[in-house]
């Protein structure tokens, strides 16, 4: 019988996309965070190829487990619980982490927790030395998650059992749009860092690219919200960049790549931060946590800081290694679930590629 512990020792496995992560925490103390990425193998495709990511997970997961346990100086017998991302994510990729986690549970007899990937991006903020440094998550908390696979605004009333989705992308994720625009501009993969670097040399006002889903028919009013008040769309923006580049080429002019990059980035970051701050205001959210790989983007951080400050909202940004996908966030959230007396998932659950944020743990 495992009684809820004051500071449970939890190992978390993450494999929802192209990062194989194993992290170990003791309560809110981070002991280790091992991440192995297959990003290099996706470069020539300009995006994550699920089958290639899944094959890489299979070969990376046991070495990552071994390394994490070594670095943390703990043995499997010491653990209080095992945790794994059960979704959302790529089916074949999730499957590898879930099977490894279940096997660990079979081998050790330890309870297994099936954790929501998106909520884990928030849970990581609770770790010691992070932006909250071990204090409780603030009341009236929101989260803005921006990555290659996700663009979401969440309201977090209680981290282990009361999370609500306020808005999300209806097509591409923001990071995906970065990758596609980088290809259009002949830049390297992943597109985020490449565009961020080039945008610093360009004029963000040179070209006015569309801000998706900002028309009144989508936004509505605070009293009568439209159908996509807090939702995002980046598919049209990506097409607008392609048409813009083609027009320069058709006229035989050089494409002002830095201006296009800066203007594209401004369109993305403007709409994301505007809608996030609007969602905070209208839902009484006073602290906003930024997560996901695109949280490393310099313009997103700057504009989010500027706009949240103007609105009197506290902005919480974990360090980059905890913003991108990792196992520590899975362990961190599972530790909260354990401390709250949450029930383990057992061995029979299936990965859920579209696990909703309302399902913090299965």
């Amino acid at each position, binding site marked *: 019988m495992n009684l809820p512990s004051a500071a449970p020792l939890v190992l978390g496995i993450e494999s929802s996309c192209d990062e194989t992560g194993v992290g170990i925490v003791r309560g809110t103390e981070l002991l280790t965070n091992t991440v192995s990425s297959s990003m290099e193998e996706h470069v*020539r*495709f*300009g995006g994550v*190829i699920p*089958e*290639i990511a*899944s*094959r890489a*997970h*299979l070969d990376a*997961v*046991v070495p990552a*487990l*071994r390394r994490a346990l070594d670095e943390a100086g703990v043995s*499997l017998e010491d653990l209080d619980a095992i945790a794994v991302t059960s979704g959302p994510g790529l*089916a*074949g990729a999730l*499957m*590898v982490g*879930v*099977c*490894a986690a*279940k*096997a*660990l*549970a*079979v*081998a*050790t007899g330890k309870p297994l927790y099936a954790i929501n990937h998106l909520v884990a991006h928030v849970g990581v903020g609770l770790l010691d030395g992070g932006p909250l440094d071990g204090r409780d998550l603030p009341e009236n908390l929101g989260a803005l998650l921006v990555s290659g696979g996700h663009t979401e605004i969440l309201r977090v009333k209680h981290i282990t059992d009361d999370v609500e989705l306020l808005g999300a992308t209806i097509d591409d994720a923001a990071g995906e749009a970065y990758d596609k625009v980088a*290809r*259009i501009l002949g830049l390297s993969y992943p597109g985020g860092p490449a565009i961020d670097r080039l945008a610093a040399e360009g004029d963000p006002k040179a070209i006015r690219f569309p801000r998706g889903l900002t028309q009144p028919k989508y936004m509505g009013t605070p009293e009568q919200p439209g159908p996509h008040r807090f939702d995002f769309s980046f598919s049209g923006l990506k097409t607008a960049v*392609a*048409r813009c580049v*083609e*027009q320069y080429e*058709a006229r035989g002019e050089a494409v002002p790549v830095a201006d296009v990059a800066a203007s594209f980035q401004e369109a993305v970051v403007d709409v994301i931060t505007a809608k996030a701050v609007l969602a905070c205001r209208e839902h009484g959210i006073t602290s906003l946590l930024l997560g996901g790989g695109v949280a490393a983007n310099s313009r997103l951080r700057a504009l989010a800081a500027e706009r949240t400050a103007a609105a009197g909202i506290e902005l919480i940004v974990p360090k980059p290694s905890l913003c991108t996908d990792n196992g520590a966030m899975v362990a961190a959230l599972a530790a909260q679930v354990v401390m709250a007396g949450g029930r383990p998932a*057992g*061995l*029979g*659950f*299936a*990965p859920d590629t579209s696990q909703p944020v309302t399902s913090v743990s299965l």
Partner: protein
Amino acid sequence: MLILTIDTSAIASAALLSAGDDAAEVLATFATEDTRSHAEVLAPGIRRMLDDAGVPGARLGLVLTGVGPGPFTGLRSGIATARTLAFAWDKPLAGVMSLDAVAWDVVAAGAAVSDFVVATDARRKELYWAQYAADGTRQSGPHVTAPSELPALPVHGAGAGLYAQQLEAQGSSVPEAFARTQPTAASLGLSAAAVLRGGGRLADSSPLYLRESDAQVPGPRKRAL
């Protein structure tokens, strides 16, 4: 020596075997007919099987996994499980080509009178297959091809049953007794134990995908203007 064997190249199955100097015997098995729920059923099946047999992981001498060929996602669930169990229990790990399980069944039943082929469903109108001598020695494979490329020999295994008419029309025979047989962990374990008894070596646990991912490197951008 006690051996835990896992195979998810088609169905999900596990077996506990006792391998001695002269023979091996199957002590317990778990299997599901479903080919699409491996990640759900495999771990609970293994736990129940070992609990019922009263064998803790520490008593195992070897963990074996079928390495395919088989549909990728399902195949990986067994290999990931076996690799992690072997790591956690600190036991040796080895791999066995999954079609060898059906070949073992055919030979053990005395049904092999000539060279023969074992075939399983590779989806996309193709078969995974390998060719064996009458004593069960593998002669070629595994391959993945259209059924039309199989040699004109008796073809056993669930893949044969799927394409029985076509295979018979091109000169193969499809014996009814094995027309629905899938690789099982129990037969795979017996096959591997025989290899070990004969002084042979087993392969590592690397999957035999036989196909690359479908991803294409993107070509030049399509233009609308």
